[in-house]
């Protein structure tokens, strides 16, 4: 009996495995692949199934990104959809396209990085398909129905099992929880899919991007962040930026610093801003409210400089210095520069 059931069991398992067919939304901007998407591919690969990518955008962008995307390791296929309607990733245009592609290509799992685009497009898609959305996962199981995600600003970790009622799993991935899939040796085939028109009247008007010569905050390996204690925008620039430059780090900020106008919105680290997990996180003049910690406590080494010895940031800091930041930070900057020379 045992001998007879075993082969059946393994055959059954292999059929289940083959069923997982994942699609990863490959985000891009100005014809350049957004590397956050590479972390979503790593998450998709946990399922051991077939993994394809999809590039959606204007024809020139799609052409440029597909060249790069083909060489991502682990992707069997790149679907492309080109139309001017897709050029600014408006959810009203992109979601109906995905809603048509997923069933047509027998996709069981759709992934994207938990970025502004993923957060905007995927809920609409879930609404169109009448399915749950599983946001910001930090882990998943090979079975393909069990996902782990932080809740309450990262103060609790929830593990959920999705029901078969939700036939297609719509998932966004916390980029700091997965490594990036390597680029270079992949050889995916390319297949264009039909565009889907939308009766939406929403139009893109303009965008205003914060220009910076420093590394991008969400993917930087080092981050120097400033808080309210810097007292002014001038101080923020004069104290935080030289240290960031000496360390080759991106600049971040607490919500208090952003709300006081010391730093731009896009630099905010925390529950309502960006979640980072760099090698080094330097928190300057940041007390460490739970909303801020939610955005940085996965960092490898946390350094805190704060005048208040009881600031909550010291509870998570690996190296805490109780000192006046206006003296300590310029000193630190100088010593870091000397070490480089």
């Amino acid at each position, binding site marked *: 009996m045992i001998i007879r059931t075993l082969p059946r069991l393994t055959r059954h398992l292999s059929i289940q495995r083959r069923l997982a067919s994942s699609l990863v939304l490959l985000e891009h901007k100005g014809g350049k692949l957004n590397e956050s998407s590479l972390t979503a591919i790593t998450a998709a690969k946990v399922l051991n199934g077939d993994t394809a990518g999809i590039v959606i955008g204007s024809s020139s962008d799609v052409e440029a990104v597909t060249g790069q995307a083909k060489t991502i390791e682990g992707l069997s296929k790149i679907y492309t959809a080109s139309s001017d309607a897709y050029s600014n990733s408006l959810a009203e245009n992109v979601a109906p396209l995905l809603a048509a592609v997923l069933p047509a290509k027998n996709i069981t799992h759709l992934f994207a990085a938990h970025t502004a685009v993923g957060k905007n497009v995927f809920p609409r898609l879930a609404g169109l398909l009448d399915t749950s959305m599983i946001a910001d996962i930090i882990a998943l199981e090979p079975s393909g129905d069990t996902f782990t995600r932080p809740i309450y600003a990262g103060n609790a970790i929830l593990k959920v099992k999705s*029901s078969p009622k939700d036939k297609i799993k719509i998932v966004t991935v916390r980029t700091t929880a997965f490594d990036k899939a390597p680029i270079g040796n992949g050889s995916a085939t390319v297949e264009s899919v039909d565009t889907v028109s939308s009766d939406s009247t929403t139009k893109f008007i303009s965008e205003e991007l914060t220009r910076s010569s420093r590394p991008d905050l969400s993917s930087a390996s080092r981050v120097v962040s400033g808080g309210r204690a810097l007292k002014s925008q001038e101080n923020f620039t004069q104290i935080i930026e030289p240290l960031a430059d000496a360390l080759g780090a991106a600049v971040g900020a607490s919500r208090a610093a952003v709300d006081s106008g010391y730093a731009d919105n896009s630099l905010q680290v925390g529950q309502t801003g960006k979640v980072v997990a760099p090698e080094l996180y330097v928190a300057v003049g940041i007390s460490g409210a739970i909303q801020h910690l939610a955005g940085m406590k996965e960092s490898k080494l946390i350094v805190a400089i704060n005048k208040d010895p009881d600031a909550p940031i*010291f509870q998570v800091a690996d*190296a805490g210095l109780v000192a006046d930041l206006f003296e300590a930070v310029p000193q630190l900057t100088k010593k870091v520069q000397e070490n480089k020379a």
Partner: protein
Amino acid sequence: MRPTLPRLINILVPVKRSIDYAVKIRVASDGKGVDTNVKHSMNPFDEIAVEEAIRLRERKGKLVTSITALSIGPAKAADTIRTALAMGADTGIHITTPEGIVVEPISVAHAIKKVIDRSEGKDKIDLVICGKQAIDDDSGSTGGMLAGMLGWDQGGFASKLDVEEGGKIQVTREIDGGLEKIEGNLPFVVTTDLRLNEPRYASLPNIMKAKKKKIETLKPEDLGLDFTPRLETISVSEPPKRVGGGKVENVDELVGKLKDAGLL
């Protein structure tokens, strides 16, 4: 030639009663949730949504016909609706659920859609302003799901919002790396980001007045809704504890730590 009639706007603001943002969360002993026997308040992003609806009326006057606050939850969710009424919303709708039941974003979106479908004529809801995410489940999906279900246009993560006569709507959205401006038309779903506005406090006279405002109470069955969850909670656990607390005496020691970690 007759001038185009101004389009009247009926606004619906979904509000969620969630654990107060300042409370330090504790995982419940059964490992299936968190300890909810703590202070609750209106989800901060929903306060911003209520505030924006009121400001829109303050700017546009009669163009905004009504502001309705909707909440789904146990009896105490009525407090959250009262708060919205005290801020300036006109009426409330409370869809009641038993204590301890989690209503998932997809169910909330279905419920809001039912409420909108039910409205008609001059009371037809044509603008939904909701928070970008609830700070308890951090899912951030209800607004977008609703827009998809209704086939309405959407402006997610709004930091600026304006509606013109005739129903043209402008939204400045917070995106990675900056801001994006889009334009659409009513009916429309907006989700609010932090910087959209600074919510007002309800004054005592307004709190008193709010007690006289009407809250319609409905059961899920009244609307033909089924809140059975589709996602099963396997476990809720504490995040891994971070061992911090290593203090250094001075900048030199700090530099030493960075060197030890191979960062310098």
